[in-house]
Each structure stands twice: as structure tokens, then as C-alpha cells.
């Protein structure tokens, strides 16, 4: 059966659609052909798939072939059976007949013969040629057709349909289509069943020796092909999948040694998309196929079906896994295959899949699928790239490949090719060897920026040199010692071990470059690395048939171009997929190549992406590898901002990643740039490098308005000391965010040591609230930097990239404004007026130090400080204590707990500096003050005791205390101090004797909280009064001293009489208008209580004080000249608005001859005084009334007035300005009131209009 393979292949190539046979019984084909073929392809066909489920197939291709056609006639029965899939799927019998008899006799037997073959699916198309107008013909045709139906239709199935050539019925075509599809479906079912049965039978023999895979394959593929023809691609694909599984099982059965294949020319190019790459008959081997070709063939078939099914994603998916698994298979047979065929094959396979699918993918699939698609493309590109790099490495371009983690990860774990014999150096290759040698020599391993020296990552799984030599035919395995010996003989004297470490391949190669290169070409000695490369290149040239690949490997430039293309392809596709990291990592490779070619701009962009990825996720090891490259790009591009930021990032990487020397180099760069002339000074974020925090412990507390010093811990990540030109921090008020941030500055330059530094910052007065640290800014040279990063009291932590929570712990609390100090008067009771008195002030700090405070005292009017005296200061509490002690016993009041405390202070320019010891305790300051009151004290009448006005004795003292650390706090207060005379005096005439002697009683009321002691008192009388018996005006001397307790009174009687003589005599002298009571007194009081003796001020001076009180003595009104009497109103009550006449009767009681002052003797001046708010006076208020000088003459003064308010009001008063009050006797004698009623209600206003 395997012999039929070629034929099978040919049949497959020729038949690509279902065949419908046409049995043209009545020569009708030419006339119906056109109509029938118009129905193809079948628009819609309902077929059954392998599992007998209906499947709708659209545009099913088919072909009508006459049974007389050679294609159907020339087949042998066995052939037909074997390739049944190409046999007709339906047979249409075209019949036409108009005569019933003819039908019965001729046609019917013939038809019966035709349809007797049970295997066939057939139906009869009766073609009526009758013209519609020809009734007879139509009738006959109908009869014949009816007969036909009776004869050939069965109950189950109608097999006849009628086609009218003249006027086709639309329903016919539907019927026709249905019948064709029905036939095809039935045939398909039957054949599928047949094939399955056959396959099943064959599968049962699988483990028997007779098993022949080729036969199985033909059956299986026939079925698959049939399904494919019927557009049942899904089923077809399944058949191929099963076939593949079965094949792999067959291949993997141990026993027979089979040829693998892959040795022919062109096999290095994958035939994944070319099912017809090699005829199957060529790859058949015994009872099976060569694996190399056959598996590719199967995959190609699958891909074809997948494309038909519109599943490019699945193509890529299957493609990738096929390549991986096939690559493994290739690895198993590597020793028989050409050198590096595996790698070359993988490259071509990947590229083939990529190119076939990238054009077909429409991008309309679900986004998930799209991402998956791109990911797989990325994988394919990546795989291709790895293999390509491997080839390049073998031929010596390895020195130019970036030794990055990406490349190292891909290459260093990928085993070397394992040919049975490593290719040998071709003849006459010395020029090439030299060229390779040169390439290796010239390849200058790029020195990393900042002199970073790293061991380069390996790109090879083991030393290529050793591997190549080990696999050479002429050398035994593991001849390391030979190699070493050879080299020692060669005279290179470099330690062999070192040379063989993978990373030192380059240096090793240099040692080989001797001048006698020609002579070193010998088969028996180990190859040198350049020879290995040349040999590999030569072998590859034999392996590779793809001119593009050959070209790509031909020169370094071509290699790099291809390498770039593959890397970009992989990166771009990964970027479109979920696998962003893969994409970005490859971007780094692109950047490396860009860098190498001087395309620094692109390189920097790509490197930035890579750095951002690694930094974002904290992969510092990887970042440390890439970041110096970025920095170098930026430096070359003169991107100072970027370069600085990269340097800072380098510095802020973990300690172990760079050597101290390297870190110092980074810092040097930063400092160098900072102090260089920058065109545009750039701000720099050093958050990762310089971190800061408040000091541990409670926050600094400041009172409102106080400046302070805030210690801040700053962690420096610089490896060396770094000088900061300035440093400032922002403070954010946590309570009130409206205020924004406040900046506090440290004025002086700082040198930050590596690690922890404590820096003190001056805090100007802040508003109340609690403050947290905000941003640290500062300057290094011309460089402004800022840091947002808080350290938590420990060294700066590199993993902090994910903890952005700011510490809410406040570093500074500014308290709400409160009273920090209180100054009050120590004594509330009155002090002595006009005497030197101690004024006590209690200065009471309220939880606030008054250190260095200055008290300014500004006395108000009438008060002065006696600056010649010192000021006493003592502790307030002690004063109180002392007082208690003083009460208990008469112990010493001063104790010496503070021996050094100055108790005496001096006032300078009205200011007193408080002593330090008094800064935290309440103290009492005692000032000597002197209140001055020029007015003489006046005695009051006992009848109308008019006490001294309190305001008169009030003196103010304005105090201003400047305190706080910078005397920034100011406390101002004005204190009222009450001064008073020691006593006030009331007088009354105690008795009036008939002889004119008056007993004048002077009552002395003590006004102070101290005991007064009267030593003497005398009365200097005014003119008109004389002492009785012409005494000196003193009471009985034994009466003194008289002690008056606080708030008590004492009385002194003086007997005086009116001096009638004096009146005339005194006319021309300045008479004493008032009497003076002179009192000599002493006072014994405590200054902490109130008034006290001023004698304590002047030691040795007399403690007797002198006090004068003026007493106004009136001549008794016993001798009035004129009497004024208020005449009662005529009506009982006054009303508001009522005009009344107010009358006074004036009567002369005495003759006034003696009075010289009265110029107008017969008239008297009067004046009416009324409150204008109460009274409205009609007429004159002042005038002269006639009054004769004769005693008893009288007159009446009338004034019309009207009260304006109701109530008890004072009536207008009549005064006689020309007369002395003493000579007027009034009736009523004192002020009196009259009652004024409200106005009467006026009803007239209430009458409705």
C-alpha cells in the first residue's frame, strides 16, 4: 500500500473539491450544464461531522463531472476503493422523456440499471423540454414524471425532481440543492464510517509486526483530506492531530533504528508552512517516514487547516510549542545533523511563523487573545534572537554582544551544539583566522562609566574553547592538561586556570596571538579560539542555505542589524502583550546597541524605561547594572538634570551593590556638577539619598510667639562628607492647612557626614498648632536639592519605595496663646497720698521662664517713682509665708534660702532687669513711689458726708514686661493703685451756745489699713472765727496721742466763736478763706497690707507726719439779709404742658446801709435757674426786681414756665447772684421737689373722622 504514496500525493494535489457525477441518459447535459453549474459553490450545506453532528458549511466547492468523463472512467476498482474520497459524492441522473410507453419500455429499465449500485447516492432530474404553450407535450411530460416518481421515489426518500427548461420554477433549485447536499451528506457519512472502520482495524494491529505506518497514514490522511474537501476543517485538523500523536508514538517506540533526516540540502530551513516541500514518497523509510521531514509535513498540514479556520493565534501557539519540542528532538539527533542545524532551523522556523501570522492577524479578536498573540510573537522573536546570538557567538561576534543579564540568562544556560565532531579549521583559512584574531583584539571591552569594574556575565555555558577542543576528533576528551601544556610551551605564561574561566576568554585569546600564526595550524594541537570561530563559520556556511541568514552572519554590521531587528521585534511584541518586563528588559539591549553606535538619545530613552521598571519594583541589583549606562548616556548628551538624578539614584542604591570607591566617584560627579557653571540650575530630588526626621521623643513645644531651635536628624547617604551651602525645611501645620507651609532655614553651611547628622534649625515664631516636617531643601554649590523622604529614625532604607506614608508625628508644637506671666498689685488697699510708699507688684510667671526679662515701668500722672531708692524683690510665696510666721511669732522674717539672690534692684531708664533666680518663681517687687495730690483735703459736713472721690486717689502705673528667650514676648498691663489721705474729716457744729460759742466737732475717719496715731492737732481758723479764749486751737494736750485703729473714727472738739470784729478789719487783707485742721500723726502699717509708714525709707527721720484738712466754716445763717420764699402753687398738681406761674417772695430782713457793695440800693438782681430739659421758661430768667433797702420791704418775682416731663422734679430755683449765699435764707431751705402729672388725655384726637 505504501507504493500508492506517490499516487496518493498526486491525487491529493489534483482533487481539491467534491465530485458530483452526472449520468446524462438523455443527452441533456449541454442544455442544463449552465444552470446546474450556477448553483456552485453550494451556498449552504448541512453536513455531518465525524461525531454525526450537523455542521453548516458555506460555499461548499463541488464539481460536476459526467460519468463518461475519462477521470471517472479510468479507475480500477481497487484504486477507487483506496482513494474513495475522490469518488463522486452524488450522482445526478438527467432524464427526459415525453412518451410514457417509451419510458416504460426503454428508460425505466435503463434507470434501474444505473441506480442499482447501492453505494451510490443518486437522484433523478427529469428535464421537461415541453413548451408551456404546448399543452399536449406538457401533459405528457407530467404523466411521465408522475410515473417516474411512482417508480423511483420511496416512502423514505424522494429521488426525483423536475426541471422545466422553458420557465424554471424557483422551487426546483431549492429542491435540487437539497438533494445534492443530502446525497453528499449521506456519502460523506458512509465513507467516513468506512474509513474509521478501516483505521480502527489498522490501529488494532499497531503493536504487531505487520504494522505499517504508511498505510495507516494513507487511510488517516484520506479521511482528513475528505473532511477538508467537505470544508469540515475542524474534523480534518483532528485527524492530523491524531496522526501526529500516533506518529510520535511510533517513532518513540524503541527498537528500530530509523534515519532521522535533515541531512539534505535546504533542510536547515524549516518547512513548517510548506506541506509540499518534499514529496512524501521521498521521505518514506521502511514502513514509516523520516521524522525530520514528516513532522514538519504534519505541522504544515495543521497550519494550513488552522489558517482556513481563521485561527492565526493557534498557529502561533502551536508553532511555538512545536518549535520548542522539535528543537529538543533535533538536539537528540544533533550528532548526526550538520553543525548547528538545530539553531539554524529554529531561526528559520520562528521567522516563518512570525511572517505568516503577522500578516494574517486581523487584530479583531478579543483583547486577551491579542495580547497572547503578541506575547507568542515576542517569544518567537526572542527564541530566534537567542539562537541567532548563539550562532554569532560561535563565529566570533561574542565579544561584541552585550554581556547583560538578559543575554547571559538566555545564553549561559543554553548548551553548546553537540556535533559528533567539532568542525575543523578549513584549509587556507589563515587569513580568516587572522581576521578573527584582529576582531577579538580590537574588541575593547567597554569600560563602564565611573570606572565601575564588574565581572562580566558569561554568555557561554562553558568555555567554548574547551568545548570545541573536547569534541574534536583528534583529541581525547578532557585534555585540559594538554591545553595548558601547549600554552606553556607557547610561552604565554598566564595561568591556565584563569584563562579557562569563561569570562576571561578575551584575555585568553590575546595570549594566542603570536607572530607565528601560520605554523600553528596543525590538526593535532588544540584549536585556538580564533580558529574555533573560523571553523564554526566555515561549518555554518555549509549548513546554512538561507542567503539572508548567511548575509546576516557575514559581517559584524550585518549581524548587528539583524540582532537589532530581532530584539526590536521581540521587545515591540512583548510591549503589546502582558509581558511588559520582557519588553523593557529587551529595550535595555536595544539601548546598549544604540549606545554602541553612538545613538545616545535613543539609548538614553530606552535605558530610562529599563531603569524605571527596575526602580519601580525595587530590583536594585538589576538597576545597578543599567543605571551607570543611563548616566553615561546622559553625560554624553549633556543632560545635566538627568545625569545628576542618575548619580543620586546610584548613590541611593543599596550599599553592597557598589564599592566605596565607586560610590565616591558618584558623589564626586554630583559635587563637580554642583559647583560647575550650570546654564540652567536644576532642582534635584534627593529623597532617596538624604532623609530626615524629627528627633525622637516628644515634639519641641513653643509658646505662641516664641522662636526656637528645632533639632532635626538628617541621614546622608553620601559615602563621604558633603558640604551643604544651605539647608531649609518646611513645616506644615497639621491643624490648619490653609496656611500652607512655613520654611525654616539653617543659615550656616553644614557638612553632612555619612549617616546620621543632627542639625539645628532656627524656628521663627509660628502660629499655634502642631507642625510636621515637610520637605527638606538645600543647596550643594549651585544645585538646589530637595528631599521628601522621611527616615524613621534608622538608616535610610532602600526598600522604602513602597511605604509612602508620612510620619504624622509632629516635631513642633506651638501652643495657643495664653498668659505666660501675670503682674498684679500686691496690695489692694490704699496707700498714703503724698508720702513715699512701697508699691508692691507681684510678678508671677505661669509655667514660663522669665529669664532675662525686662520690666518697664511708666507711671501715670500724679505718681512718680523715687529712683534714688533701690527696689526690693523677694519671693512671693515666701512673703506670704513670712507673713504667716510674722503672725505666729516674732521670728525673723527674712531667711536666707537664697543667699546669693540679689534682693535689691536698681531701676535704669525706667526699666528693671529681673534677676535670674526670679525667672521661675513668683516674686514681689517693691517700688518706692510717691503719689502727688496738690489739692488740700477738705473736711465734709457731717450732715452731708461727702467722702473723698475714689478716682482722685487713683493712680495708674503702666507696666511692660519683655521676656522670653529673645525678649519677644511682651506683657503689658496698667495697674491702678489707690492712694488716699490717711483719714478724712467730717465736721459739724455740735452745739451752739447762746453766747455765740460754737462747738465744732471734727470727726477723723481712718482711711488706711494701718493704725494711725495722732500726736497733735490744731485748728487754724479762717477769718471771722476765733478760738474761744484765744487759745492756740489745740484740744487738751493730754488727749494725745490718740490711736485710731484701721477703719475706725475719732473725734476732736474745738470751741470757736464768730469774730464779729474781724469782718471789717479784714477787708483789705488777704483773708484766710478756710480753716485748716492740722494733724500731726504717725502711722504703723505693713507694706504688704497697705498704707505704711514712709519712715522706713529714710532711716533716722522723724516718723511724725503732717496732714492738713481744710474746713469750710460758714458764718451761721442766723443773720440773713434777705429771705426768699417759694410760693406754693395755686393748684395742687401740675401737669405736663400746663403753663404755671412760679412765684418767689423776696423780703429784706435787714437794712443794708452798711453794705457798700450794693450799688443799686433799691433793686435786687435775680436769676432763675431751671433745668431746660424739665422746664420751659417763658420770658426772662434774669433781671432786677425792685426792692427797697428798708427792712421789711418785699417784692414778688413771677416766672411763667411749663413742665416738660412728669414725675417728681426739681422746680426752677431763684438765685440772687449779687448777694452772698450766707445772707440768704431760703424757704424751703434745701432743694425740694414738685410733682408733675402726665398731661391729661385729650379725647379730641380720638374722634373718628
Amino acid at each position, binding site marked *: 500500500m505504501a507504493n500508492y504514496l506517490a499516487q496518493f500525493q498526486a491525487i491529493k494535489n489534483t482533487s481539491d473539491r467534491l465530485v458530483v457525477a452526472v449520468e446524462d441518459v438523455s443527452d441533456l447535459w449541454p442544455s442544463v450544464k449552465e444552470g446546474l453549474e450556477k448553483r456552485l459553490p453550494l451556498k449552504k450545506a448541512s453536513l455531518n461531522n465525524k461525531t454525526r453532528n450537523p455542521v453548516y458549511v458555506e460555499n461548499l466547492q463541488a464539481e460536476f463531472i459526467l460519468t463518461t468523463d475519462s477521470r471517472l472512467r479510468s479507475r480500477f476498482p481497487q484504486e477507487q476503493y483506496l482513494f474513495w474520497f475522490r469518488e463522486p459524492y452524488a450522482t445526478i441522473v438527467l432524464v427526459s422523456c415525453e412518451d410514457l410507453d417509451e419510458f416504460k419500455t426503454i428508460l425505466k429499465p435503463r434507470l434501474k440499471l444505473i441506480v442499482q449500485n447501492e453505494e451510490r447516492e443518486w437522484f433523478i432530474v427529469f428535464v421537461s423540454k415541453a413548451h408551456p404553450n404546448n399543452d399536449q407535450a406538457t401533459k405528457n411530460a407530467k404523466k411521465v414524471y408522475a410515473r417516474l416518481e411512482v417508480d423511483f421515489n420511496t416512502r423514505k426518500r424522494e429521488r426525483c425532481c423536475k426541471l422545466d427548461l422553458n420557465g424554471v420554477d424557483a422551487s426546483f433549485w431549492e429542491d435540487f440543492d437539497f438533494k445534492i447536499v443530502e446525497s453528499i451528506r449521506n456519502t460523506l457519512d458512509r465513507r467516513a464510517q468506512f474509513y474509521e472502520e478501516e483505521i480502527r482495524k489498522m490501529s488494532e494491529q499497531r503493536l504487531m509486526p505487520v504494522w505499517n505506518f504508511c498505510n495507516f497514514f494513507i487511510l488517516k490522511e484520506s479521511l482528513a483530506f475528505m473532511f477538508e474537501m467537505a470544508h469540515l476543517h475542524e474534523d480534518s485538523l483532528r485527524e492530523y492531530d491524531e496522526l501526529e500523536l500516533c506518529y510520535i508514538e511510533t517513532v518513540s517506540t524503541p527498537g528500530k533504528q530509523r534515519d532521522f533526516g535533515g541531512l539534505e540540502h535546504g533542510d536547515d530551513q524549516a518547512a513548517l508552512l510548506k506541506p509540499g516541500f518534499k514529496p512524501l514518497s521521498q521521505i518514506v523509510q521502511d514502513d514509516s517516514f523520516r521524522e525530520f521531514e514528516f513532522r514538519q509535513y504534519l505541522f504544515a498540514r495543521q497550519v494550513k487547516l488552522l489558517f482556513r479556520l481563521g485561527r492565526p493565534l493557534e498557529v502561533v501557539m502551536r508553532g511555538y510549542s512545536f518549535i*520548542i519540542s522539535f528543537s529538543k528532538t533535533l538536539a537528540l539527533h544533533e550528532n548526526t545533523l550538520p553543525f548547528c542545524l538545530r539553531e539554524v532551523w529554529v531561526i528559520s522556523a520562528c521567522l516563518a511563523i512570525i511572517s505568516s501570522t503577522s500578516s494574517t492577524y486581523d487584530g479583531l479578536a478579543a483583547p486577551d487573545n491579542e495580547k497572547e498573540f503578541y506575547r507568542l510573537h515576542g517569544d518567537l522573536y526572542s527564541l530566534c534572537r537567542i539562537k541567532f546570538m548563539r550562532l554569532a557567538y560561535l563565529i566570533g561576534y561574542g565579544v561584541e554582544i552585550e554581556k547583560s543579564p538578559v543575554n547571559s540568562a538566555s545564553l549561559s544556560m*543554553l548548551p553548546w551544539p553537540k556535533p559528533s565532531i567539532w568542525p575543523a579549521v578549513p584549509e587556507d583559512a589563515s587569513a580568516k583566522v587572522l581576521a578573527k584574531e584582529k576582531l577579538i583584539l580590537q574588541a575593547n571591552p567597554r569600560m563602564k562609566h565611573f570606572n565601575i569594574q564588574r565581572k562580566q556575565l558569561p554568555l557561554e555555558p562553558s568555555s567554548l574553547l574547551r568545548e570545541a577542543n573536547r569534541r574534536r576528533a583528534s583529541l581525547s576528551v578532557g585534555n585540559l592538561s594538554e591545553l595548558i601544556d601547549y600554552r606553556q610551551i607557547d610561552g604565554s605564561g598566564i595561568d591556565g586556570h584563569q584563562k579557562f574561566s569563561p569570562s576571561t576568554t578575551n584575555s585568553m585569546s590575546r595570549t594566542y596571538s603570536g607572530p607565528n600564526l601560520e605554523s600553528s595550524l596543525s590538526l593535532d594541537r588544540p584549536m585556538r579560539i580564533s580558529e574555533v570561530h573560523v571553523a564554526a563559520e566555515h561549518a555554518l556556511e555549509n549548513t546554512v542555505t538561507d542567503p539572508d541568514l548567511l548575509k546576516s552572519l557575514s559581517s559584524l554590521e550585518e549581524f548587528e542589524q539583524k540582532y537589532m531587528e530581532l530584539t526590536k521585534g521581540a521587545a515591540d511584541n512583548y510591549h503589546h502583550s*502582558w509581558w*511588559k518586563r520582557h519588553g523593557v528588559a529587551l529595550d535595555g539591549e536595544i539601548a546598549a546597541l544604540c549606545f554602541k553606535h553612538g545613538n545616545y538619545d535613543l539609548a538614553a530613552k530606552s535605558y530610562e524605561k529599563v531603569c524605571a521598571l527596575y526602580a519601580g*519594583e*525595587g530590583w536594585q*541589583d538589576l538597576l545597578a547594572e543599567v543605571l551607570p549606562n543611563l548616566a553615561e548616556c546622559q553625560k554624553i548628551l549633556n543632560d545635566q538634570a538627568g545625569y545628576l538624578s542618575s548619580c543620586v539614584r546610584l548613590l541611593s542604591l543599596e550599599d553592597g551593590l557598589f564599592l566605596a570607591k565607586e560610590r565616591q566617584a558618584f558623589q564626586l560627579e554630583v559635587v563637580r556638577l554642583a559647583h560647575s557653571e550650570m546654564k540652567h540650575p536644576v532642582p534635584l530630588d534627593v529623597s532617596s539619598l538624604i532623609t530626615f526626621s524629627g528627633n525622637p521623643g516628644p515634639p519641641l513645644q513653643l509658646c505662641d510667639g516664641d522662636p526656637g531651635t528645632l533639632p532635626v536628624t538628617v541621614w546622608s547617604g553620601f559615602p563621604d562628607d558633603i558640604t551643604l551651602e544651605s539647608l531649609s525645611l518646611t513645616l506644615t501645620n497639621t491643624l490648619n492647612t490653609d496656611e500652607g507651609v512655613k520654611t525654616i532655614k539653617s543659615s550656616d553651611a553644614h557638612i553632612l557626614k555619612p549617616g546620621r547628622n543632627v542639625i539645628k534649625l532656627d524656628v521663627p515664631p509660628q502660629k499655634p498648632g502642631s507642625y510636621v516636617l515637610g520637605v527638606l531643601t538645600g543647596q550643594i554649590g549651585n544645585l538646589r536639592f530637595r528631599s521628601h523622604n522621611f527616615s524613621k529614625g534608622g538608616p535610610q532604607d532602600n526598600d522604602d519605595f513602597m*511605604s509612602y506614608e508620612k510620619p504624622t508625628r509632629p516635631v513642633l508644637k506651638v501652643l495657643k496663646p495664653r498668659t505666660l506671666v501675670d503682674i498684679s498689685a500686691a496690695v489692694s488697699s490704699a496707700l498714703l497720698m503724698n508720702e513715699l510708699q512701697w508699691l508692691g507688684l507681684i510678678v508671677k510667671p505661669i509655667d514660663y521662664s522669665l529669664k532675662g526679662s525686662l520690666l518697664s515701668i511708666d507711671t501715670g500722672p500724679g505718681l512718680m517713682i523715687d529712683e534714688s531708692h533701690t527696689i526690693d524683690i523677694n519671693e512671693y510665696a515666701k512673703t506670704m509665708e513670712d507673713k504667716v510666721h510674722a503672725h505666729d511669732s516674732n521670728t525673723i522674717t527674712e531667711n536666707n534660702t537664697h543667699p546669693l539672690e540679689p534682693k535689691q534692684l536698681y531701676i535704669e531708664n525706667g526699666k528693671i532687669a529681673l534677676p535670674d533666680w526670679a525667672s521661675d518663681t513668683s516674686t514681689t517687687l517693691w517700688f518706692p513711689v510717691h503719689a502727688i495730690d496738690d489739692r488740700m483735703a477738705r473736711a465734709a459736713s457731717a450732715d452731708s458726708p461727702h467722702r473723698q472721690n475714689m478716682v482722685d486717689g487713683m493712680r495708674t502705673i503702666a507696666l511692660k514686661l519683655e521676656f522670653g528667650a529673645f525678649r519677644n514676648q511682651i506683657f503689658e498691663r496698667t495697674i491702678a493703685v489707690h492712694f488716699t489721705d490717711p483719714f478724712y474729716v467730717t465736721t459739724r457744729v455740735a452745739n451752739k451756745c447762746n453766747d455765740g460759742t460754737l462747738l465744732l466737732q471734727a470727726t477723723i475717719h481712718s482711711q488706711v489699713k494701718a493704725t494711725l496715731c495722732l500726736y497733735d492737732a490744731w485748728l487754724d481758723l479762717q477769718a471771722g472765727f476765733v478760738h474761744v479764749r484765744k487759745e492756740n486751737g489745740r484740744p487738751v494736750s493730754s488727749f494725745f496721742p490718740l490711736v485710731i485703729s484701721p477703719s475706725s473714727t475719732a473725734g476732736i472738739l474745738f470751741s470757736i466763736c464768730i469774730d464779729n470784729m474781724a469782718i471789717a478789719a479784714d477787708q483789705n487783707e488777704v483773708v484766710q478763706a478756710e480753716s485748716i485742721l492740722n494733724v500731726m500723726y504717725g502711722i504703723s502699717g505693713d507694706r504688704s497690707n497697705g498704707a505704711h509708714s514712709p519712715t522706713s525709707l529714710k532711716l533716722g527721720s522723724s516718723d511724725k507726719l503732717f496732714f492738713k484738712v481744710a474746713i469750710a466754716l460758714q458764718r451761721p445763717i442766723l443773720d440773713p439779709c434777705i429771705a426768699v420764699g417759694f410760693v406754693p402753687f395755686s393748684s395742687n398738681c401740675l401737669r405736663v404742658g400746663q403753663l404755671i406761674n412760679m412765684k418767689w417772695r423776696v423780703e429784706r430782713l435787714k437794712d443794708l446801709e452798711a453794705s457798700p457793695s450794693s450799688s443799686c440800693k433799691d433793686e435786687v438782681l435775680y436769676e432763675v435757674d431751671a433745668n431746660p430739659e424739665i422746664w420751659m421758661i417763658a420770658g426772662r430768667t434774669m433781671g432786677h426786681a425792685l426792692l427797697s433797702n428798708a427792712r421789711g420791704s418785699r417784692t414778688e418775682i413771677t416766672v411763667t414756665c411749663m413742665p416738660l416731663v412728669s414725675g417728681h422734679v426739681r422746680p426752677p430755683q431763684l438765685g440772687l447772684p449779687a448777694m452772698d449765699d450766707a445772707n440768704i435764707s431760703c424757704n424751703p431751705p434745701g432743694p425740694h421737689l414738685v410733682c408733675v402729672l402726665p398731661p391729661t388725655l385729650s379725647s379730641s384726637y380720638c374722634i373718628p373722622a
Partner: protein
Amino acid sequence: MIACVAVVGHQNNPLYLQSFTGADDALKLHHIVHCSLDVIDERVNNPKRSVITLNESYLGLLYPTESYKVYGYLSNTKVKFLVVTTDLDVKDTDIRSFFRRFHAAYVDAVSNPFHVPGKKIISRIFAARVSGIVKAFAPGTYG
């Protein structure tokens, strides 16, 4: 042979990475582990696509290449455990069992009150224990 084991935090930050290749080439393993996070991300973000249901910690083979394999394991707290092995045929059960031990060691390490969550694991005991687990790992050792 296990080339490398790694613990990666829930923000994809490396918490622990130990190479067992003996050579000074840990950086490439960093790269492999870091790139493998792509696969974990993809599986976690596309539960539909992933073969293994997410209620299981073991993520299975993440990353088959020709030369090495990466297996993953995801804890409930989204901490990822990864193993890079150069053994190309390893039984799933072995790897599962390995991850269980590895996870247990991690849990013990981070239970240390002096360990700051989210920070790199610097415990020497953990390192020693992981080395022990790696050394004990040989295909077929665990059942």
C-alpha cells in the same frame, strides 16, 4: 539542579533571592526571576486563561525555555515563590512539595518579630534552611 530560589513581595519587589549555581552570575537569575513575574501577573490578572485555578497556591511551570524552567507559587498574601531549575524533567509533585517547605520556611522567617514586613529577608537561619531544602531537593525525593 535548582539554580535559584526567590521570594518576591506582593509589590513585585524582591525579598529574597539565592543563587545556587556557584558561579558569580546571580544577576542573570535576577533577570529570570524578574521576567517570570510577567507570567505570574498574567495568570493572576487573567484567571480565565490560566490553566491552574487560582485557589491553589502552586502556579506550576511558568516559563519553559530550552535551557531552564521556572516554577511559581503564590501565597495568599500575594507573596511569590519562584524556583529556577535547570532540570528539564521535574515531577510536579516534587516541585509542589518543595514549595510547601519553602513557604513554611518563609512563614517562619517573617514571623520573626524583628522582621519588617515588606523588607528583604536577611535572616541567616532562613538562608540556611532554604539551602537545606534546596540541597535535599532531588527529583523523586518527595512524594
